[in-house]
């Protein structure tokens, strides 16, 4: 399989996109180590299959698409190992339980209450449908435009707007149930 022969070009690509890719993966995985590992897998995939990039989209669109796919591949592998928890999640599909709250990640300069709220928010994000989750994560965490998200998800801009709106509605319902 052909790949990027020019390592300098690849290094520049990594320098330019590594923070964005790590942040995108973090938005789905909520764990920094997992996000970094997955981001590395993304760049390895980019290196090995650069010839497959036919230039139909921008390189950033292609990279984000790989990042989203790799993140969900990771989640699928993780879920397949946790069959007991999967049954629990199916039974409690519309709720966030206090015991689901994992330990908060390290964030500089953010207070404890905000960290806890972010953890609750991430848990809620895990519960909404996949497409809604992708759309709202790319929009809010990566600040991508509707147009860019539509290209990444290979859909229309109006569909992306609809997904973001429905994601907010779903999140609101889950959070209201959690706080009651």
């Amino acid at each position, binding site marked *: 399989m052909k790949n990027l022969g020019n390592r300098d070009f690849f290094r520049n690509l990594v320098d330019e996109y590594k923070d964005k890719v790590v942040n995108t993966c973090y938005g789905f995985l909520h764990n920094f180590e997992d996000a970094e590992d997955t981001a590395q897998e993304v760049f*390895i995939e980019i290196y090995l299959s650069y010839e497959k990039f036919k230039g139909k989209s921008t390189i950033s669109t292609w990279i984000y698409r790989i990042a989203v796919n790799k993140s969900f591949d990771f989640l699928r592998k993780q879920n397949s190992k946790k069959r007991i928890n999967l049954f629990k999640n199916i039974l409690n599909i519309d709720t966030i339980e206090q015991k689901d709250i994992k330990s908060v990640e390290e964030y500089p300069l953010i207070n404890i209450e905000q960290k806890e709220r972010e953890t609750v928010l991430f848990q809620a994000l895990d519960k909404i449908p996949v497409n809604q989750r992708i759309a709202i994560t790319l929009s809010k965490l990566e600040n991508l435009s509707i147009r860019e998200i539509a290209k990444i998800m290979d859909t229309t801009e109006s569909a992306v707007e609809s997904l973001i709106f429905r994601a907010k509605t779903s999140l609101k319902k889950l959070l209201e149930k959690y706080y009651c």
Partner: protein
Amino acid sequence: MKGNNNKYEAEKTLILLDSISKVNAGPFFQTRLDVKLEAILNNKTPFIWRFSLKPALLISLITINVIISISYLSSVKSYYALRENTLQTMVKNYFPQTSNGNLYNLQTKEGI
């Protein structure tokens, strides 16, 4: 009142979507990536071995070998059984009785 409180808390949490802190790659990201990439590029096993070690193919090969072995052993067994029968028939036809009145077992070289 409680319902309004729930909504307020939910809104307060939802607003964080607009201000979630971004994370950046660690300082050794590039170094770790280079190491992983070198390991992958240097560890190119021959295609035939990579292909042949895939579990489904391995299991198929083992199953086929087992079937061939069983059918070979069955055919060998039936060959010897057929040979025995043929010899016994020949003995019966040409030598109906041995000297002590018993049939002769060619394999054990004893009277039956």
